[in-house]
């Protein structure tokens, strides 16, 4: 069935089709429609789930963790300040190995108060151990929720599905809604190996000294590493069942490209149009979209960057004192490679400033003119 959906409702549909059992959430602009629609779906009895209307995001994540540890599939959604408030519990969800899925609408952090898009909220949570998927359209948002439960429950790590505020969250697009039976076939019920069960009592998360903690962290890293292949496999299987295949990254006209743009989220969709326009003018440009940043797609990135003349990484985020975060990561992934291209980093579109096709073409021209890579090139800032 095809429907015209806003990005936020694509999250709600994804959660419903995944038959989530416990939802705990707190409203924040621009996420509200996610939980409003889910409240309705649950109230109408169309989804057999408990909706806990918690008093904060911190409690939302705590409740999801409790529910997941007790054996239920749990879902929440938030944005910016809400995600930051969850921070302590984001670590908890990873350490407790609870495969929760969270929808995060990328919104810039206050102050000053603002509600428009930027990736600093989710990228600030990069090192918590959550897997992170950056979506480029509403179809991908819906599909990624379903895929995320499959991966998360296999490797026992939680996943964050990330979408741009307004550009996706409030933009209506045609979305193919998969049939429930097919989703049920693709995504088996959640049945964790260990759970809170009076018939088999265990203590979870008890005091652990230097003797044991180290190994537990090692196991989490191994699960992250294993998840790369699981994302690839389940993304391929998704294609077989639903006709839309997903990988950790996506390439566009990269075959003979001498100049490679690396981008994520909706800037990547805009860059795709820019690539088409530039190709018409005879430029050999291609695009690598990073969809999953944790686990980091080392193989895909290295393979794609190999032998390019110039690489431009576009970031809608900034790690103050260092630069764009995708840029840092791509650059460091290439450091030990034999054929490393010069990599340029551009920061743009912070706080939701529009990034247009022309802007991306200008960025490419700018980088073409430059001899040496620079760590931070600002595009569009009025200073």
């Amino acid at each position: 069935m095809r429907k015209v959906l806003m990005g936020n409702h694509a999250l709600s549909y994804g959660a419903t089709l995944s038959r989530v059992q416990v939802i705990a959430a707190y409203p924040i602009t621009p996420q509200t429609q996610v939980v409003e629609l889910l409240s309705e779906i649950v109230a109408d009895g169309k989804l057999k789930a408990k909706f806990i209307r918690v008093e904060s995001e911190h409690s939302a994540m705590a409740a999801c963790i409790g529910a997941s540890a007790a054996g239920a599939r749990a879902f929440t959604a938030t944005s910016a300040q809400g995600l930051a408030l969850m921070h302590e519990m984001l670590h908890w969800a990873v350490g407790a190995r609870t495969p929760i899925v969270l929808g995060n609408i990328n919104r810039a952090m206050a102050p000053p108060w603002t509600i428009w898009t930027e990736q600093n909220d989710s990228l600030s949570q990069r090192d918590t151990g959550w897997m992170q998927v950056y979506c480029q359209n509403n179809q991908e948002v819906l599909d990624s929720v379903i895929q995320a439960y499959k991966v998360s429950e296999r490797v026992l790590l939680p996943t964050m599905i990330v979408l741009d505020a307004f550009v996706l969250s409030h933009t209506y697009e045609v979305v193919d809604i998969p049939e429930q039976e097919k989703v049920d076939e693709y995504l088996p019920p959640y049945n964790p190996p260990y759970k809170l069960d009076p018939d088999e009592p265990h203590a979870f998360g008890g005091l652990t000294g230097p003797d044991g903690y180290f190994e537990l962290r090692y196991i989490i890293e191994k699960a992250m590493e294993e998840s790369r292949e699981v994302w690839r496999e389940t993304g391929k299987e998704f294609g077989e069942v639903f006709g839309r295949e997903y990988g950790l990254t996506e390439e566009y006209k990269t075959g003979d490209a001498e100049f490679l743009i690396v981008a994520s989220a909706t800037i990547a969709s805009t860059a795709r149009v820019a690539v088409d326009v530039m190709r018409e003018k005879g430029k050999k440009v291609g695009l690598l979209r990073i969809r999953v940043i944790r686990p980091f797609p080392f193989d895909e990135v290295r393979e794609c960057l190999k032998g390019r003349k110039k690489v431009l990484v576009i970031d809608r985020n900034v790690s103050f004192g260092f630069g764009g975060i995708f840029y840092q990561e791509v650059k460091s992934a290439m450091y030990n490679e034999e054929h490393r291209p010069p990599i340029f980093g551009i920061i743009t579109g912070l706080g939701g400033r529009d990034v247009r096709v022309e802007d991306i073409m200008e960025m490419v021209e700018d980088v073409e003119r430059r001899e040496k890579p620079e760590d931070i090139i600002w595009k569009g800032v009025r200073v």
Partner: protein
Amino acid sequence: MRLPLPEREVMTPGHLACQGCGAALTMRLALKALGPRTVLSIPACCWSVIDGPFPHSTVNVPLFHTAFETAASTASGIRAAFEILGKEDVNVVAWAGDGGTYDIGIQALSGAAERNDNIIYICYDNEAYMNTGIQRSAATPLGAWTTTTPVKHPKSEPKKDMVSILAAHRIPYIATATIAYPEDLVRKLERAKETKGTKFILILSPCPPGWKTRPEDTVKLSRLAVQSRVFPLLEIENGEKWILNMNIKKPVPVVEYLKLQGRFRHLKEEDIQRIQEYVDKEWERILKRCGLA
């Protein structure tokens, strides 16, 4: 004579509490009443250590260690999961210290209480942050020494009235208890088990290292707290019907309770008088609310 306490022991030996720990005895009695079909959500507090280091556990029921301020919200999540999974016969218990209840966890507790989530919230109250080395909490009584209220400036505020705060939430059942009256404690937990909605049980739990008391005085202190009217034994139904379980007609002077505790050793006579007056005033309020004034 038959002791009105369940014979069963759910908790097993081997816990890591200090000698004379009120909180350890509290858990033992609570689990006798609650039984093995219980799940515990325990935030940061002494009990996150008492249960034993991984992989050991002394409670012998499923225990989820959670963050300091999330005893209630984690329990709400567990309850929601059990409801949707059709496991209705399990007691979901949030088990927190006074710091995790009166201070940092009050928001999550208030949220759960307002939603009337079907959980039993038990606060074992040792009247300070003991896990981190005896710092003041909102439950620390007037005049007490702690490491952050040194004898030069002991606590100048009275204990927060947590029971009234919960009563204002109109939850179906609230009770206070001490280990000195185990049959009363067990009866209250059995009542909590049978009641739907949010239940709040406050249990005074003397702490020998924190209160500077002798380990063998833990039960005696618990009894004196009641007999001196410092810690009234109460039940509150729906936030409205207040029941005084033990009307102390001839109270022991508060000084008898205070003088066994090193944390009050610095108090001068006039300080003790002030505390006595405060206790008297509070008792009058309780009597009024219980319709006994």
